[in-house]
């Protein structure tokens, strides 16, 4: 994704999505945030799954107040932030609130303005988006400057990632996509999956995506979610940690 973000400039807003559910968005978002924070960057991770939040669960944090209060009561998002480790804050969302997954247009505008007033102090803002191609997914992707798309080496995941990119390209004019291939058997497989989808994107949409890297299938990822801690912190030497550190260096 070109230069890394340091210090004073306005934050780099990056949306992480996948189309298909369960391909590793939340795991990758959390550990990417942790890796950036380890590199002395200030990171805000927004739980963009506004109606079915996951980030709080995956990090074992007890959430009382969520982004819902910002939307419904105008609460200052700064008062909602939870510090996970130095430099890494989370803006939590609510779970089981379908209205939040379908914000009205006015609410979206209000949320965008409020968030933009909040994020100045960060170097990176990561959004862990919901699965699917619902309005909130498209909206967060549109709001972000950079778009990371996660896919795995399986036909449904590849098709869904392609469909999401196609929508973001044709409806929102997005041209730059950064792909991460998750759950690969080898780096070679990750590269092949990337080249495969790249060929289709080039041929039909005239888009050339960027390859951010791949993440191996690694049981430490599963264990870390169960321990409710980033794998990068609990298992710093795992293959997943090494891979995520490389990806963090590229954004």
């Amino acid at each position, binding site marked *: 994704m070109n230069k890394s973000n340091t210090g004073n400039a306005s934050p780099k807003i990056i949306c992480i999505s996948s189309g298909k559910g369960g391909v590793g968005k939340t795991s990758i978002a959390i550990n990417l945030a942790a890796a950036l924070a380890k590199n002395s960057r200030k990171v805000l991770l927004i739980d963009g799954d506004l109606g079915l939040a996951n980030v709080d669960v995956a990090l074992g944090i007890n959430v009382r107040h969520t982004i819902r209060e910002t939307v419904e009561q105008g609460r200052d998002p700064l008062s909602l932030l939870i510090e996970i480790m130095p430099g890494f804050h989370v803006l939590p969302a609510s779970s089981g609130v379908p209205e939040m997954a379908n914000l009205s247009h006015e609410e979206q505008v209000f949320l965008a303005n409020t968030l933009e007033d909040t994020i100045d102090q960060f170097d990176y803002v990561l959004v862990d988006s919901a699965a699917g191609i*619902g*309005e909130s997914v498209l909206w967060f992707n549109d709001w972000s400057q950079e778009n990371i798309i996660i896919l795995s080496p399986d036909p449904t995941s590849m*098709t869904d990632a*392609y*469909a999401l990119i196609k929508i973001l390209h044709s409806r929102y004019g997005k041209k730059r996509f950064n792909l991460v291939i998750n759950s690969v058997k080898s780096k070679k*497989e990750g590269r092949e999956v990337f080249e495969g989808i790249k060929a289709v994107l080039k041929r039909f949409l005239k888009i050339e995506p960027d390859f951010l890297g791949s993440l191996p299938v690694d049981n430490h990822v599963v264990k870390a979610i169960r321990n409710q801690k980033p794998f990068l912190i609990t298992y710093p030497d795992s293959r997943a940690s090494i891979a995520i550190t490389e990806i963090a260096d590229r954004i």
Partner: protein
Amino acid sequence: MTSYISCNDPEAFFRIIEKQARHYPVEATRITGKEENLCGLFLFRKGLSRPERQKALGRVLKMAAAEPERAPEEGDDPICHVPKTLGEDSCQVTTEERAQLFSFLKRESN
């Protein structure tokens, strides 16, 4: 199925576009009416020369002038309508796209 954001507040929409325009090399100029209400936006590629800009504006004015005659013949669409081809289905993944995605996967598993 994805739905377009449906909204009946055009000013809010203009403000969103204006905001997005900051991320692109374009200039958004407000067109305001009576009492400063927002009637529309001009969007220009940044770095256009003055003559280029005037020529473009000239075209818009010409289209606006021709509008009263055009509308009864061709229907009521506003002069700068969204192309019809940009319909809801334009994003659907086609069979050709799928075929190529899958052809690669088949090669993989061999």
